C-alpha cells in the first residue's frame, strides 16, 4: 500500500480525506489493524505547545519622514531591545530579549516578567507597541531619533522566524543538590523532590516521524495559530543519538527551524512565558501533518507515551558542567502519572508543555485539513537522518590568536 501526497491532496480538496490526530490513530490501528489503518488514514496530525527559547520575529517597520536608519543604531519595542544589524528599518526581536533596565538576576531569583516574547504576544493580540529608536544620522537618513506607536496593522512585514522549535524528545530535569535551583525547566527543589519534563510525547511532531521520512524543508505546518513552513533543520540538530523501538530517539535529537506570517497568528498559540531566576521565553504552538504514504510511515505515528523514553538529568551539576550522566530513563506514560521512581526514590513530576493545548492544535489542524483549507506539501529537501554524520559539537575554548 502506497499513496502520494498528490492523491491525498485531491481527497482533501474533495472533502474526503480521513484525518486522525496522533492520539486517535493509535486506537484506530488497534481496532482495525495496521494494514487497514494505513489504507484508510490519509493524514495524522500532531501538536505541541511548549517553551521554545530560540524563537523571534523580524519586522519591516516602514519609513518615517524624514527617514531614519535604525540599522546599526538602537531600537526598543516596549522597552525591549531588537537587533538592528540589518537594513534601515528591518529589525529582529528575540523571545528572550530583556529590557536593559530589568534587574535580571541581580536580586536572585529574578522575575523576568516582560521580555521579547511578551512584546510579540501583545503585537499578535492586536495591541499597539511603543517603538523607540536612536540612530547616527546620514545624508540619506538624516533623522537621529523616533518615538512612536506601531502595531501589526502599520508594520509592512511581520514574520515569525524561529531557529529551533519542536525538539524531538527532551531531558527530564531534577536537582540532586541541597538547595533550590531556578532553571529553564522550572524551579527544582533539592534532594530530587520534583522533576519537570517538556514534550508532547505521543502527540509531538518529530516523535511521530522519528526518522524524518515526511517532515522536511518546505513542509507546511500549523504555526502559532496560522500557517507556517519548516524552513530548515533546527539548530542543535543531533540525529545520531541512541534510539529505541522504531527509531524513536531516547535523547533530545531533531529540531525544526520554522517560519510564518505573524499577522495570521493568535496569542493563544504564541505566548510569552517567565521562568523565575532564568528569563523569558515563548510558548509556540506547532502542528505538523504527517501524510500516511505507506504502512511504515503509519507505524511510526502509532508511537505511544509508554514507548518514548526520556533521560533524567541533574540540573544542579551534570547540565551546567556539560556532563553526560543520565541518572535514569523514564517513559512519558510514567511521567504523566505525576510521579516517577529514580534510584528507589519517588519523585513528583510535572510538565512544562501544555497537553491540553497540544491536543487543541492537533485537533485544529485536523479540522483545517478536513475542511479543505490546508493542503499538504512535499518536502523540497530532507532533514539529516541518523546516519548523516550530523552531530552536536561542543564549544571548546582554545588559545587566542597570538597567545600560542
Amino acid at each position, binding site marked *: 500500500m502506497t499513496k502520494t501526497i498528490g492523491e491525498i491532496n485531491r481527497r482533501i480538496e474533495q472533502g474526503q480525506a480521513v484525518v486522525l490526530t496522533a492520539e486517535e490513530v493509535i486506537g484506530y490501528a488497534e481496532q482495525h489493524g495496521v494494514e487497514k489503518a494505513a489504507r484508510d488514514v490519509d493524514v495524522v496530525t500532531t501538536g505541541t*505547545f*511548549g*517553551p521554545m527559547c530560540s524563537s523571534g520575529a523580524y519586522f519591516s517597520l516602514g519609513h518615517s519622514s524624514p527617514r531614519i536608519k535604525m540599522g546599526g543604531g538602537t531600537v526598543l519595542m516596549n522597552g525591549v531591545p531588537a537587533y538592528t544589524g540589518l537594513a534601515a528599518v528591518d529589525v529582529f526581536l528575540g523571545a528572550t530579549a530583556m529590557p536593559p533596565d530589568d534587574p535580571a538576576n541581580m536580586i536572585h*531569583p529574578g522575575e523576568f*516578567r516582560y521580555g521579547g516574547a511578551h512584546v510579540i504576544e501583545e503585537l499578535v493580540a492586536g495591541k499597539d507597541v511603543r517603538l523607540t529608536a536612536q540612530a547616527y544620522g546620514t545624508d540619506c537618513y538624516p533623522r537621529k531619533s523616533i518615538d512612536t506607536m506601531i502595531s501589526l496593522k502599520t508594520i509592512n512585514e511581520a514574520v515569525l522566524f524561529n531557529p529551533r522549535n519542536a525538539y524531538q524528545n527532551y531531558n527530564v530535569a531534577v536537582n540532586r543538590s541541597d538547595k533550590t535551583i531556578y532553571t529553564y525547566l*522550572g*524551579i527544582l527543589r533539592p534532594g530530587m523532590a*520534583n*522533576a*519537570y519534563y517538556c514534550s508532547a510525547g505521543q502527540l509531538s511532531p518529530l516523535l511521530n516521524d522519528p526518522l524524518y521520512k515526511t517532515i522536511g524543508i518546505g513542509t507546511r505546518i500549523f504555526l502559532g495559530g496560522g500557517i507556517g513552513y519548516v524552513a530548515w533543520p533546527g539548530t542543535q540538530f543531533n540525529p545520531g543519538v541512541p534510539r529505541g523501538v522504531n527509531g524513536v530517539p531516547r535523547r533530545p535529537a531533531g529540531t525544526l527551524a520554522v517560519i510564518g506570517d505573524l499577522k495570521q497568528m493568535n496569542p493563544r498559540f504564541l*505566548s*510569552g*512565558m*517567565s*521562568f*523565575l531566576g532564568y528569563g523569558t521565553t515563548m*510558548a509556540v504552538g506547532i502542528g505538523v501533518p504527517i501524510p500516511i504514504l505507506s504502512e511504515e510511515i503509519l507505524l511510526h505515528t502509532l508511537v505511544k507515551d509508554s514507548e518514548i523514553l526520556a533521560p533524567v538529568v541533574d540540573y544542579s551539576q551534570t547540565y551546567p558542567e556539560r556532563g553526560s550522566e543520565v541518572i535514569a530513563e523514564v517513559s512519558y506514560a510514567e511521567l*504523566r502519572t*505525576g510521579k516517577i521512581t529514580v534510584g528507589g526514590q519517588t519523585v*513528583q*513530576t*510535572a*510538565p*512544562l*508543555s*501544555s*497537553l*491540553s*493545548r*497540544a*491536543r487543541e492544535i492537533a485537533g485544529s489542524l485536523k479540522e483545517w485539513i478536513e475542511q479543505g483549507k490546508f493542503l499538504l506539501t512535499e518536502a523540497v529537501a530532507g532533514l539529516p537522518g541518523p546516519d548523516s554524520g550530523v552531530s552536536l559539537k561542543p564549544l571548546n575554548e582554545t588559545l587566542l590568536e597570538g597567545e600560542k
Partner: protein
Amino acid sequence: MTSRRFILHFPAAVAGRPVVSKLASQFHLDFNILRSAIDPGNEGMMYLEILGKADAIAKGAAFLKSMGLSVTQLDQQIRRVDDRCTGCGACVGFCPARCFAIDGQTGAVGFHNQQCTACGLCLKACTRRAMELVL
C-alpha cells in the same frame, strides 16, 4: 464533614483572651492551628483550619468576627486568571498543598483551591504570571 482554612487577625484587645477554643466548646467544631503568632497585648495572626459541617463552620466563622477578629477564607486569597493560563503544568509540580492537578481525560490543569494555604509559591512557579494574590 468539610474543611475550610482561614487567616485570622487578632486586634491587641482580643489577643489575650480564649476565642478559638470556643469553636470546639460552643460549635462542636474541630480545628488545626496551621501557623500562629500571638503575643498577649499585641496584634496577632493565625492560620486556622476548621473542620465540621459547612453550616457549623459558617456559624463559627461568624462568631470569630463577632469577637472582633478579621476573618478571611484562605482559598479565596489566591486566584487564577484563566485567560492567561496556558495549561503548561508548572504549578502542578510546585504547590505544596497539591491544589493543581492535570485531568487525565482532557489534559487540562485544574485549580482546586479548597486545600490552598495561600503560601504564594504558585505565583512564582507560574510561567504566565496567571496566579494572583487578592489582598
